[in-house]
């Protein structure tokens, strides 16, 4: 027969101080782990949401990022007339030749300089990114030294308000608008007219990338293959979603350090939990012997103490998750290995992260609780009663 769980809950309540301290220790470990997992979840969200499944990104064969190299502008008309490209209201194909360059801007809070991506695009480039909405001002005018800035840039850098001038490349750029693309990587970019940007960075006569908007996801896939398979073009098509998926790898360093830190802290916390559970067993030696005499079997004693350890760690997990709640949605930036510039994303506490945290805590509880529970179940009844 199993020992009721209420017995364990009452025991935890009885030794309040000890329970709270041990649970807090586990909670701190869980908080650290959750913090890192939420960072990674937020990063993934920022990049996953950036891609549009009907957009095809065309780059020179061999290029891994929009930043590396470019190709001749003469190829643009060929790309533009490929079948399967959606048409805008005027009946023109939605295709945009673009440049991405990196500039250094000082942070608003004065904590140093950060690399920022500047994207030069054609007016069609705005049409094929419908999730980028203006929240202030207007879009840039082609042929003018005007830029619009992403929401994260607007918030994090000085001189990024409508009416301000940003100083990069060969002079001043007037900020005429702020756009929001719903927390995606575009929010960390500055957009301007492609010809103006190319001229300022001495890159006329070519494009780093061409974006094509297909009529539907199937046409996008066909378009991608058509571009890649054409031997004369020497170009390669990628779905925009695939391109951004690859960029999530920039979280690699956080992932490595995070796993390392979480494991070491978990080992420390397991030892602490083990201590608490051994004390609980020692304290209740006579009680356990009595339970045995009443007729509870060794396995049920073992199970009962393991459950108590698991309850303790569950409490720790809940406290740990609650501790991280105020940080949910806090934004931070991360350097991207492919674009060399900073992408801003927010800490994102998902159900998956919370579940992983609970499982993580349970493992700690199990590691810490099993040996003491084993010890409790193996105790000699007579010696314990005499103690």
């Amino acid at each position, binding site marked *: 027969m199993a020992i009721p769980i209420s017995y364990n809950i009452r025991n935890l309540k009885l030794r309040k101080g000890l329970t709270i301290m041990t649970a807090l220790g586990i909670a701190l470990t869980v908080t650290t782990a959750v913090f890192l997992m939420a960072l990674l979840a937020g990063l993934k969200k920022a990049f996953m949401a950036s891609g549009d499944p009907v957009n095809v990104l065309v780059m020179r064969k*061999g290029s891994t990022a929009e930043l590396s*190299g470019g190709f001749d502008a003469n190829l643009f008309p060929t790309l533009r007339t490929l079948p399967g490209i959606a048409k805008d209201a005027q009946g023109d194909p939605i295709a945009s030749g673009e440049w991405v360059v990196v500039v*250094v801007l000082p942070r608003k809070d004065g904590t140093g300089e950060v690399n920022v991506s500047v994207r030069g695009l054609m007016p069609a480039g705005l049409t094929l990114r419908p999730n980028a909405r203006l929240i202030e001002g207007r879009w840039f005018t082609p042929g003018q030294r005007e830029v619009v800035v992403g929401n994260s840039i607007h918030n994090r850098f000085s001189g990024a308000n409508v009416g301000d001038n940003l100083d990069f490349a060969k002079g001043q750029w007037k900020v005429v608008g702020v756009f929001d693309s719903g927390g995606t990587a575009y929010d960390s970019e500055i957009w301007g007219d492609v010809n103006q940007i190319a001229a300022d960075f001495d890159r006329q006569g070519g494009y780093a990338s061409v974006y094509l908007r297909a009529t539907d996801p199937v046409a996008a896939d066909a378009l991608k293959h058509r571009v890649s398979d054409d031997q004369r073009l020497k170009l390669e098509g990628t779905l925009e979603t695939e391109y951004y998926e690859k960029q999530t790898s920039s979280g690699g360093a956080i992932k490595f350090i995070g796993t390392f830190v979480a494991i070491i802290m978990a080992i*420390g916390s397991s030892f602490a939990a083990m*201590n608490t559970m051994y004390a609980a067993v020692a304290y209740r030696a006579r009680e356990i012997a009595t339970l045995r005499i009443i007729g509870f079997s060794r396995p049920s004693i073992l199970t009962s103490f393991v459950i108590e350890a698991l309850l303790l760690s569950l409490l720790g997990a809940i406290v740990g998750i609650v501790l991280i709640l105020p940080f949910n949605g806090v934004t931070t930036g991360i350097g991207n290995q492919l674009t060399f510039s900073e992408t801003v994303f927010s800490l994102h506490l998902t159900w998956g992260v919370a579940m992983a945290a609970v499982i993580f805590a349970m493992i700690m509880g199990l590691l810490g609780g099993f040996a003491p529970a084993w010890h409790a179940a193996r105790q000699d009844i007579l010696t314990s009663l005499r103690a």
Partner: protein
Amino acid sequence: MTLTRFVTKSAFRNRRRSLLTVLSITFSLLLLTLMMTIWHAFYIDKGDAESAQRLITRHRVSLTEWLPGFYREKIRTIPGVVAVVPNSWFGGIYKDEKPENFFAQFGTDPDEIFKIFTDFSMPADQLLAWQRDRAGVIVDDQLAQKYGWKLGDRIVLKGTIYPVDLELTIRGIYTGPQPTNSVYFNQKYVEEAVPGAKGKAGTFDILADSPDNVPKVAAAVDAMFRNAPEPTKTESEKAFQLSFINSIGNVKVFILSICFAVVFATLLVSATTMAMSIRERTREVAVLKTLGFTRQSILRLYIGEAVLVALTGGALGCLLALGLISALSHAPGMSLFLSGMKVTPPTLLLAIFVAGMVGLLSAILPAYHAAKLDIVEGLRYIG
């Protein structure tokens, strides 16, 4: 029995508990020492003497813009400059795109690079062979070990920035002061294949005649090109490297919050143990008092006990950290930032001090209660 011996005996009388507490503190302090070492390497260490004499010049707009190659000879005329060499990031793919197969590849000038990287060593005949073979490459010894490269082997780097695949022959294997995870080849080889790359350089590495002249040289270089179409930004090698670390995110806050969490968790563990062990000995305390021990001496006994346990854990943690860091920093293929990291004596002292403080703080409250205990009540106490 002396008091020290009494403290030692009582600290370890419940062997299992003391062992678990010590281990728990050990792992926390291991993490704390690691974090402090990283902090030290990033923000306090000025780099070795050779590195402190080097500067890196890049395009003011960003690292991804090219500088004209003729800047090299102009920089050379600046007083205090001993040598200048161009370094261009190739960013090619070796074998496949997997991150473990990534290493840095630079196009440079074989005739002058070893005058600047004075802390690199390579046999003279290998240097000569490299200088004579335009399609030659020299590789880091750790990297050579990782891939099993030997002199005369051919490697292919698939270009991503440049539309060319480089076929290179290994002419030399160099040893840096720490693993560099890099290979160097002649930039002229790239320029021959890609006409657009001619007369351009990614960055310039400069050797100044003394570390004291570094800020002056940096200012002079930037002043020289201030009104040129391609303005420059020059900084010390250390500052240049730090800008990469800063791009990962707010590393300072990151490290500090981990340290804080670790110390607080250790404090909780230690306090729990002390509370348990002092409560168990309520009767003993009463006996000690009956024997004439004053409040102060009882307070001191228990605090000493906690500090002893915490210090043992701290010392073990420091030892583990020492071993782990020396293993990590010598492992081939470790990221560039962790390589060459050393635990310094001040870091160790600080870690031990933190451990001692944790022991002290954790014992104050339970020890105070014990010292205040009423003798008669304590004797009646039945656990």
